[in-house]
């Protein structure tokens, strides 16, 4: 009875929030439901036959979740997913609430939750997932999330308490993630990529997990892809990258190696759920990027692509992706608000020097910390006279659009809140 009222009231509240333009109503209903019944999530899922999929990792959650949802929908399944800004417990509760009838029936075959790194252990106490995808673990907002070793340890503890038939889909190329598979008694399947390794930089600084997660010895890599991802082995305790790894999909709808990882994770999962190859293949062909993840927009007759880049690994990979496209117009946006992380020191861990090797590049910098970006470029020995710096976002976007030739693309690489702001300016719509 109680939950029925919560569902009813929650749906009402969500409609009020949306119609009053106070937001998209994806967290408050769940927040209140949990206030009145802390077992709300458990209660709703108790008698459900819906298969629950968790997607966790530092980078790629939103894209991977959307890929899976799209493939399963193309396979004729009814799928529910939380929106990317709703990846804490209140967002999970809201997603459930809004998709449950007042007779407490969930109207879906699959429910996919992308979950914040630090919320994952809590989420496992509320929900018993059937499948967990672990994408990667990079340093991200150390002021908010803390050290990655600590996160990995908490994940390991969370996995130990789950039923033995839980399916894990793990990144074999991330030593810390692969090690979680070795340590857990659950079923594992592995994905990775098979590409040309890149040469190791002269001074290998700021890698997170190039030391063995088991014994602490420095890992050997026969191939290094990016950050600590690659084909690795431990010379001391013999821990090695798993051998049965899915490293390819039929087609990659998004640019960049990081998206090949996301795609391989999604297709491995869907195949393991029995989706036929033909449907997987066709779905990849019809996939459209999610907002701010290589999203293409036309503005004042110019082609624009917005790419979210919120930590060193993400930014390095986004830079590589646009270099594959021979980008020549780039606007970089750095904000330091709560959702971005107040600490911007990570920009010094990006291989920005790489960008400066492009034969022709018009660079503009903006955001709350535009001058920190400018300093980063100065110390990378960029030609400062060719940089446009403005801490006013509207001016920066208009200038960069104007400077972009008609048949070329302006790439906007932005941290989270800067991406939302830029998108709002370009589309006239607010998303969150």
């Amino acid at each position, binding site marked *: 009875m109680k939950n029925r009222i919560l569902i009813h009231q929650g749906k009402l509240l969500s409609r009020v929030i949306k119609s009053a333009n106070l937001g998209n109503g994806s967290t408050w209903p769940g927040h209140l439901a949990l206030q009145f019944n802390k077992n709300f999530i458990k209660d709703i899922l108790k008698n459900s036959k819906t298969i629950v999929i968790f997607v966790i990792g530092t980078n790629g959650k939103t894209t991977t979740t959307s890929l899976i949802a799209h493939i399963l929908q193309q396979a004729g399944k009814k799928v529910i997913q939380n929106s990317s800004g709703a990846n804490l417990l209140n967002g999970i509760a809201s997603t459930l609430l809004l998709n449950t009838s007042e007779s407490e029936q969930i109207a879906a075959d699959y429910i996919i939750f992308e979950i914040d790194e630090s919320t994952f252990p809590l989420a496992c106490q509320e929900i018993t997932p059937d499948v967990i995808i672990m994408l990667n673990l990079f340093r991200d907002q150390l002021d908010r999330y803390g050290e990655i070793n600590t996160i990995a340890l908490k994940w390991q503890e969370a996995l130990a308490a789950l039923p033995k038939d839980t399916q894990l889909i793990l990144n074999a190329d991330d030593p810390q993630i692969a090690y979680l598979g070795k340590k857990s008694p659950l079923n594992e399947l592995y994905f990775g990529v098979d590409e040309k390794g890149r040469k190791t930089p002269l001074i290998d600084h700021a890698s997170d997990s190039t030391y063995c997660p088991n014994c602490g010895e420095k890992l050997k890599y026969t191939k290094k892809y990016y950050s600590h991802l690659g084909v690795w082995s431990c010379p001391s305790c013999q821990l090695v990258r798993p051998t049965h790894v899915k490293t390819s999909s039929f087609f990659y709808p998004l640019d960049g190696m990081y998206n090949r990882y996301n795609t391989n994770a999604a297709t491995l999962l869907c195949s393991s759920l029995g989706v036929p190859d033909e449907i997987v293949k066709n779905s990849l062909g019809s996939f459209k990027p999610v907002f701010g993840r290589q999203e293409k927009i036309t503005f004042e007759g110019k082609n624009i692509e917005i790419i979210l880049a919120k930590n060193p690994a993400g930014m390095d990979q986004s830079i590589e992706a646009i270099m594959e496209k021979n980008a020549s117009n780039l606007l970089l946006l750095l904000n330091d608000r709560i959702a971005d992380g*107040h600490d911007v020191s990570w920009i010094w861990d990006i291989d920005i020097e790489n960008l400066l090797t492009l034969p022709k590049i018009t660079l503009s910098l903006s955001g709350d910390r535009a001058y920190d970006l400018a300093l*980063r470029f100065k*110390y*990378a020995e960029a030609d400062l006279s060719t940089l446009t710096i403005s*801490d006013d976002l509207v001016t920066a976007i208009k200038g960069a659009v104007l400077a972009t030739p008609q048949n070329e693309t302006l790439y906007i690489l932005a941290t989270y809140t800067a991406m939302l702001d830029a998108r709002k300016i370009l589309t006239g719509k607010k998303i969150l």
Partner: protein
Amino acid sequence: MNNLSLTIGWLYPDLMSTYGDNGNILSLQKRLEWRKINATISPLSIGSKPQDLLSCDLIFMGGAQDKQQTIVSNDFKNGKAETLSEMIENNITGLYICGAYQFLGKYYKEADGTIIDGMGILDLYTENPGTKTPRLIGNVALQTTIFQKELIIVGFENHGGRTYLGEKVHALGNVIKGYGNNGKDGTEGAMYKNTIGSYMHGPLLPKNPQLTDYLLGKALETKYKEKIELSSLDDSIEERAHEVIVRKLRSGV
């Protein structure tokens, strides 16, 4: 004087580099090169020898996660701790951030009460009051007089340990905004001879070019045994980035 050069020893770049420490190295290197002074970066990680340390004119060491710090601590036991101690006593210039700063002190008491010996080079100690006490995190600005004039240094701090200074060292400066060494006594960092320890990353040097030049000047002076005047550089972008933080802190954001 022509053909000046400095060798900068970067200790454990693969392990002690959590908060953009690459920026500190780039600042030191580029500000030498822009003045036509030759800069060599010498990365010294696990397995390097005490002699490798001795060939350096300036030492930099950054912060790390706990696990990495234990690996480094063990590696230091092979004679390197003694060598570094002698170098610091002999006025070799160095900058030590966060974990490295704590490491130079007498001991570090972990959240669970375990005491880890430091190198005992600097008269200071660090205690972590436990996991229930919040970490000290945020932008920080301090006032210092080490450059014979009042100057504001800005950075970002993120530490669980609280550091307390003894009599043989003095603070890098007094906190205007932020927490500093322990959030109580208003001090930040420590100075001893030509060695500076601090919790400030951000990284510290790019936005504080006077501090970078102070370190470079001291290192050149020790190496060439005479005061060497550094030519001035255009620091307008550094000043703008510095100003953004000062403004942010003044407005209470």
